[in-house]
């Protein structure tokens, strides 16, 4: 790549590089200010909270975990967690493809309930609608309380009357709705409440579902589904029975995790095992419903992989310890650089300071934009990266000394040493970044936080070396203090071990 033995062209424009750096720092700061990011988002291990990692597996033998099923499971769990009403709860899938884990994070002390809530398998069931009404309690809308439905228990009627679908808690699926009993349920949007008969068709009796444009009925979106053998006869019997009944008992509700996803009216008996749901679907609604039906065919069960609960006290202790360790680490590195590199210690300290400011601003901005959270492992990654960052300077300084030993002047050594050091720094940092990226994609949980922080700081390091350290050296090489080889400059002949006729050196 580089051709180190050629005469280096003096193309150094330190002023411009430093101006670019200032501009970048200002724009990062402005972005943080505009997005209203005032503090770094802390992970649960630093502020207290509960995190649960679930490992999805097929609920019955013969099934397999599909990527769509995991997406759907994440949606279901998100709905359950949101029903708790805790701000900043998060449900994410980590990893890739079918080998993903679902990670649920709930800050604060509300975590205990989460653990029980999220682990159950969500099942899809078809139930006949027995009664429906506006999704508000009977005290608000009396029409739903007026006619108790025959054939279901008093308790169900009572619960139907009191059901308020506008509260978050009513949309909390639990996966515990008993398939053999009549239940009350809310629609997904909370606008309608239902009394539903025991389940007659199960989600796993679906063999296929897809969304498409119904060409016969113009260009409306519809959802097609196909049942397996069992499903065909069960669905055939259900539709044959309800199709001639009065509203709303001629509807069949598709219930996932205790929530009514859709309640199509059955217009004819469907003995063939293929059905089509039509209505005023948008493309997204149709696809969502198809996904729900597909998930129903392959419901996932969850193994509770890891539950971690950190009290706010421990969280703040860990934060303090992490920051303290970082501060001590920085301090020691600074002391060492001044001790060994004398005046050049200013360059090391300055560069580390610039890197620190940049990482802080990036953490602010990334926290707001992509939800980057700083965890204890992340802090460890950043502290470890102090070493890697400082090493870039060590490589560069040693190269400058090498060049001086070859008989170059400081000004020329700063430039020619840079050309050689640049290559080493690039390759070495690339290795570090590759390590971080692979760690990030293969690992789960805290390892990812570490990898992200390591990768980010390595990138920042590269940037700082190019746009701050090098220009700073160019400027400093022009100063008499360094240029004349002052004994505290770190670049004296003695430091470099050069014997020149002009300088007196004891060997």
């Amino acid at each position: 790549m580089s051709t180190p033995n050629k005469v280096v062209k003096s193309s150094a424009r330190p002023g411009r590089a430093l101006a670019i750096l200032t501009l970048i720092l200002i724009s990062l700061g402005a972005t943080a200010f505009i997005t209203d990011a005032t503090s770094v988002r802390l992970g649960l291990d630093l502020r207290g909270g509960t995190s649960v990692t679930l490992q999805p597996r097929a609920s019955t033998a013969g099934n397999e975990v599909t990527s769509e099923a995991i997406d759907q499971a994440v949606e279901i769990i998100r709905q359950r967690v949101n029903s708790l009403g805790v701000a900043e709860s998060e449900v994410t899938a980590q990893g890739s493809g079918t080998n993903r884990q679902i990670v649920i994070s709930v800050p604060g002390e509300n975590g205990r309930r989460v653990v029980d809530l999220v682990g159950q398998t969500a099942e899809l069931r078809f139930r006949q609608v027995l009664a429906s009404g506006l999704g508000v309690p009977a005290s608000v809308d009396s029409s739903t309380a007026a006619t108790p439905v025959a054939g279901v228990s008093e308790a169900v009627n009572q619960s139907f009357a009191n059901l308020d679908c506008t509260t978050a808690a009513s949309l909390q699926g639990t996966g515990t709705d008993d398939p053999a009993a009549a239940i009350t349920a809310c629609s997904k949007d909370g606008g309608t409440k239902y009394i539903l008969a025991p389940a007659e068709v199960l989600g796993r009796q679906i063999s296929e579902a897809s969304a498409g444009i119904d060409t016969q009925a113009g260009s409306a979106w519809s959802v097609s589904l196909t049942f397996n053998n069992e499903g065909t006869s069960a669905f055939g019997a259900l539709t044959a029975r309800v199709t001639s009944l009065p509203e709303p008992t001629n509807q069949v509700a598709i219930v996932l995790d205790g929530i009514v996803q859709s309640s199509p009216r059955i217009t004819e008996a469907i003995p063939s095992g293929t059905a089509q749901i039509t209505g005023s679907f948008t493309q997204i609604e149709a696809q969502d419903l198809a996904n729900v039906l597909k998930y129903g065919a392959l419901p996932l069960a969850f193994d509770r992989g890891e539950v971690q609960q950190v009290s706010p006290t421990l969280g703040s202790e860990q934060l303090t310890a992490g920051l303290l360790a970082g501060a001590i680490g920085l301090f020691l590195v600074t002391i060492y650089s001044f001790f060994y590199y004398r005046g050049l210690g200013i360059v090391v300290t300055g560069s580390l300071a610039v890197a620190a400011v940049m990482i802080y601003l990036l953490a602010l901005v990334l926290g707001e934009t992509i939800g980057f959270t700083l965890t204890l492992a992340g802090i460890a990654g950043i502290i470890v990266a102090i070493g890697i960052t400082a090493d870039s300077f060590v490589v560069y300084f040693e190269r400058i000394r090498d060049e001086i030993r070859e008989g170059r002047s400081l000004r020329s050594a700063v430039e020619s040493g840079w050309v050689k050091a640049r290559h080493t720094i690039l390759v070495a940092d690339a290795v570090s970044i590759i390590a971080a990226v692979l760690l990030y994609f293969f690992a789960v949980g805290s390892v990812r936080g570490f990898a992200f922080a390591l990768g980010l700081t390595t990138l920042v390091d590269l940037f700082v070396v190019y746009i701050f350290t090098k220009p700073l050296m160019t400027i400093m090489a022009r100063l008499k203090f360094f240029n004349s080889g002052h004994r505290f400059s770190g670049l004296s002949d003695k430091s470099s071990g050069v014997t020149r006729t002009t300088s007196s050196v004891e060997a």
Partner: protein
Amino acid sequence: MSSIKGLGGRLYTGETSVNIVGNAKRWYIVSALFTLLSIGALAVQGLHLGIEFKGGSAYTFPTTTATVEQARAAVESTGIGGELIIQKIGTDKIRVQTGSLTTAQSDSVEAAITSNFGVVAADIDTQLIGPSWGKEITKKALYGLLAFIIVILLFLAMTFEPKMAIAALVAVLHDVFITVGIYALIGFDVTPATVIGFLTILGYSLYDTVVIFDKVRENTRSITSTSKQTFTQATNLAVNQTIVRSINTTVIALLPVAAILFIGGGLLGAGTLKDISLALFIGMLVGSYSSVFIAPAVLAQLREKEPAMIALAKRVQARGTAAVTATTTASSVQGGSAVVNDRRGPRNQPKRKGRK
């Protein structure tokens, strides 16, 4: 300090030369001993796996009065059975570690703690790990390791040359093996945080090796056209030229890690920070050793087998004994070697001593 700096200069010109690469056998023996020790420790004692790998539950609660025995009695009274590890952490915390528990069992343990020691449930830090979870993360870590090795091998082979990639890899495997061995030997707990540490060592050790190899490449770029040095000698010069940097880098990298180790181990007692930094501390020391002593030696050995390098070695041999003496002499530090004469002085004057 200035004497060390002066040394840096002498190492650079070759005036002072430590014969590292030429004494490869010595380092191989040292490493082989450590590796055997590691295998032995792994076979006899095995790794001390944390609950993250074998499944189980841990509860940490604040208390200044309760003793370990009281805690044990309280937890045993719930009748959960199985292995119980109870430790005092610092002066004001107790950690209870059990085997894998069901949700109901876990609740009863928490209830026992809250009722016996007057702690509210929210103040108990808990960690529950399912029994199959460990396999999952072990698998992921192994996949990560494999992918890492393959990608790095390709990257180094493309940036440098295939033989450098192999040599770097040998050094990295050496580091991980010995670090894991030390863990088995001493019986430190292996947690996911430790695994993070191990994986970081891979990156760090490679980084260190890359810096040295970059210099080797520079020194050997036109080596066959000069006939002044054999590949081994040029490599040794590169190691000597970068050794000041290697020492500085190791010190600078270890300082922050030592800070985490001190704070993590001293203030927090246990946990992520301590586990990562302990693995890093041990691994970085081993990594620096292998970057200087193992990787260049393996590289030199691989390259010296090439016909062009054999021919070069013969030519260098023919040129006189001076340069060869410089690297075959076993003495570790010697001033004024003939290499300098070759570089600076008139040629064909092998007997002339350094010109100080």
